[in-house]
């Protein structure tokens, strides 16, 4: 398996600068930021991670049995047994969505709690074409509060996400502004750890150049912005905002912690990134990078998107191999035993991937010796509840981690179908210390989930 975390040495200045051509320019960091604010006294910073998998689940094989604090994991969630005490399984909610077709609006509403605006993406349902979601996703709301000083405001990673449209986007910085997941592990790694040369001098030079370029370019954005119409200016302002964000983070680099271990570039993926059979390999690499980004404090908000809604991934690496595309299988009837068996194995495999990610976060230690998972809140969600009905009722939500103690974990919560999933998004925000009463579309939200925190 292509792990790229080759050893467990604590990252020191020397290993960073020697290393494998990957330079983290720690001397500069120490000079400018003797101590990262969020990691200072008062406990570890909070972090949020979301993970998506597609095409709905098999609710009877997904839902745990038992009581809130004494429950047995279902067949699909069985791989998460090692993390039983870290889980909060939330069952019963209806995922909201509007505009476009069921996959489209489920994908877009999943983390935003918003419907789709009008636009040219021709949906598969009678509702006609749609555009992008009408508001920010919950992780971006969190990033706007806690994403301040790290190298990246948030990190979006994908695994064979494919075409850029509203079936393939779940993260929104704001209304109509989806964020593209990076689906190339090598690029993701380079983005985090840079290639700014191997000496502090080279880093200083590169930084001076970039600062000068960004300043001048910001000036050009201001100059042209005054001469174009209102709609065009809104587009340009988004771009200018992204430029400013880069500029404010120019000095942010990896923060040494016991868990931030010497990174080297991810192993190359054989063949094309889009080759179906590379799916698990890319996913593993992306999870390694995601964990590394958190443990090195390069970002505090991250997401991992496995494929896309209407995923056509073929799970050929399972035993026995599944050659049918996932979406085709998800349309088969409840009485189709072979298809049900395959869907069970697909969703169970995804649970095992989450277990891998949780394992990494549980094994990683903060500076104060606590687990990274304790400071983190992880959400696993899906664009649909039941695949063959395109239904968003009984949508499957699995949370993990303690959100820095805000969340009591090791629980199974069940709600009536009338409860919109926007309420879960509110509760997540509250667990992340963001005091909101509602999130997403007003009429899809009645407040936080009762008994969640």
């Amino acid at each position: 398996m292509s792990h790229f975390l080759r050893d467990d040495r604590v990252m020191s200045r020397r290993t960073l600068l020697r290393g494998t051509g990957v330079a983290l320019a720690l001397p500069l960091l120490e000079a400018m930021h003797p101590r990262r604010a969020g990691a200072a006294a008062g406990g570890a910073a909070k972090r949020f991670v979301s993970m998506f998998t597609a095409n709905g689940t098999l609710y009877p094989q997904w839902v745990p049995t038992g009581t809130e604090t004494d429950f047995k994991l279902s067949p699909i969630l069985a791989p998460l047994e090692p993390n039983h005490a870290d889980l909060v399984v939330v069952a019963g909610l209806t995922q909201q969505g509007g505009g476009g077709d069921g996959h489209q609006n489920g994908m877009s509403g999943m983390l935003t709690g918003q419907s789709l605006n009008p636009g040219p993406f021709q949906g598969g349902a009678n509702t006609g074409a749609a555009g992008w979601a009408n508001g920010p996703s919950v992780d971006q709301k969190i990033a706007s509060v806690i994403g301040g000083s790290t190298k990246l405001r948030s990190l979006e990673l994908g695994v064979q996400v494919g075409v850029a449209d509203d079936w393939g986007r779940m993260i929104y910085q704001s209304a109509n502004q989806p964020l593209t997941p990076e689906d190339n592990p090598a690029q993701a790694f380079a983005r985090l750890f840079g290639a700014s040369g191997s000496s502090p001098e080279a880093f200083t030079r590169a930084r001076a150049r970039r600062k000068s370029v960004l300043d001048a370019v910001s000036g050009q954005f201001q100059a042209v912005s005054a001469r174009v119409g209102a709609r065009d200016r809104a587009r340009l302002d988004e771009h200018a905002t992204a430029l400013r964000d880069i500029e404010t983070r120019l000095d942010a680099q990896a923060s040494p912690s016991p868990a931030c271990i010497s990174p080297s570039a991810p192993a190359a993926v054989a063949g094309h990134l889009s080759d179906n059979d590379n799916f698990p390999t890319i996913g593993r690499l992306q999870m390694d990078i995601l964990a590394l980004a958190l443990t090195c404090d390069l970002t505090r908000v991250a997401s991992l998107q496995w494929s896309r809604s209407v995923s056509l991934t073929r799970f050929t690496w399972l035993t026995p191999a599944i050659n049918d595309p996932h979406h085709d299988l998800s349309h088969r009837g409840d009485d189709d035993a072979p298809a049900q068996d395959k869907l069970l194995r697909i969703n169970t495999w995804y649970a095992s991937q989450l277990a891998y990610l949780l394992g990494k976060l549980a094994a990683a230690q903060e500076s104060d010796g606590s687990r990274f998972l304790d400071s983190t809140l992880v959400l696993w969600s899906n664009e649909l509840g039941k695949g063959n009905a395109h239904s968003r009722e009984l949508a499957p939500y699995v949370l993990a981690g303690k959100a820095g103690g805000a969340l009591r974990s090791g629980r199974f919560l069940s709600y009536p179908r009338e409860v919109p999933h926007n309420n879960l998004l509110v509760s997540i925000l509250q667990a992340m210390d963001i005091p909101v009463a509602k999130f997403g579309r007003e009429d899809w939200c009645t407040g936080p989930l009762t008994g969640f925190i």
Partner: protein
Amino acid sequence: MTTPPARVGPLCAARDPGGSPLRRLTRIEYARTMDDLVGAGLVDSSRLPPDERALGFANNAEVVSTGGLLVEAYTDLAEAAGDAVAAHAATYASCAATAPDAACAATFAASFGRRAWRRPLSADEQAALAAVYAGGEADGGFSEGIARVTAVLLSSPQFLYRLETGTSATTPTPAPAADLPDAVALTPSELATRLSYLLWGSMPDPALLDAADAGRLVAPADLAREARRMLADPRARTIVTTFHAQWLGIDQLADASKDQIVYPAFTAALSTALTRESARFVEEVVFNREGTLGALLSAPYTFGDLTLASFYGASPPAAGGDLIMLPAAQRAGLLTQGAFLAVYGKANQSDPIHRGRFVRERLFCTTPPSPPPNITVRPPDLNPRLTTRQRFAAHTGDPQCSGCHVLLDPIGFAFEHYDGIGHWRDMEGGQPVDSSGALSGTDVDSALDGVVTLAGDLARSTEVQICYATQWFRFAYGRGETTADACSISDLATAFVAAKGDVRELLVALTQTDAFRYRRAGDLLQ
């Protein structure tokens, strides 16, 4: 005296340029522009995130999104281009070899800037770049100054976006058209940019920039003259093949995943060969042979090597050539090519529904209704004893389905001789393939037997010509059409039909519409 051609397409009641959402260079445009501006292969832009795709085309300006990932990539690539330029500064400004100083940097900024921003730079802009140079020069000499000036030029909105204000600091503002009171005419530089990205997918060449600066790019005849010149340039060929690859979805073949047990023949090599075949075919038909949509849809030939000939069961190409004459009863035109059939084929079986839907949506520009929400859509399982047609019989039996599927299935079943990767088959499930079907609700309704007859119908359909012109409208202008665009669409369709479906004439016509030449005044309001 000639009679004007009969108008076709939507009823043209009132002229209107329609909306002009801000366009950003697509990945393809960015790469080609860098090649033309900096030098071929000097800037590797493959890491840019994918372009949003709507209505089939990966250049729809209405859904362009921006984010840190993209803007970081732009900044990195601009700095890399800066290094490439600075390393060979004399190539871009000869004074760099003899007198590398601030005056030379100003010369460089003015000439490289005019090419990068596709118009002359104003005095303010040149002053800003001089300041950037001075900072770089202080930190790292002439070379660093040039690198920074280049990086600024290539990270700026004037390069990345196609800004249009209808006004220019250096050329007079054209008069608005009398019967288009709410429109603003674009400046010659803005028109030059529209022309070059429409026809080349790249920046204007020196001749086009010069024509714009000299005010020789104003009247429709100017645009037509330049368009014809540009269509003779090899760069136009890539645009035409790109359009067809996106219209037909063929550019997604590389990412298509097939069941290797059912289709062991579907290898990466075959996928590549089929993609190349379609591009080569389109280029040959449009630029070297009949030149018409009709031929694209029904030509009895294709191009490739021995392997491709055997894929089609055709005789090998003559020695030294790559023209393949197709089996006349089995193949004709783009819809019978492996690339299209494999994209519109499932991982383990054919796909009559989506093939039928393609014909309705992309050839007739009608949107068939899709399954009602919250019904269980159950594609029938593979069954070795039944044909695909038999397995899909439920569509015609179940009244909840048949209302819409009657529009799709009878077209899609005509494709049943082609399996999920485009191979010809005579038998399926131990029974002979039945490729009978019907085309209904069109101007070329007929009973079908296979795609060769369908291709003949499509090739003579006026509705298909109007739709094809509409598809080009979407691709060329980077947006979907609205009712306000009726006159532009009708102008295009009329010119295309009058030219008997000549694709290059359609491209010239795309430079003559109100949608191309004007913007709405309201879009420019602050």
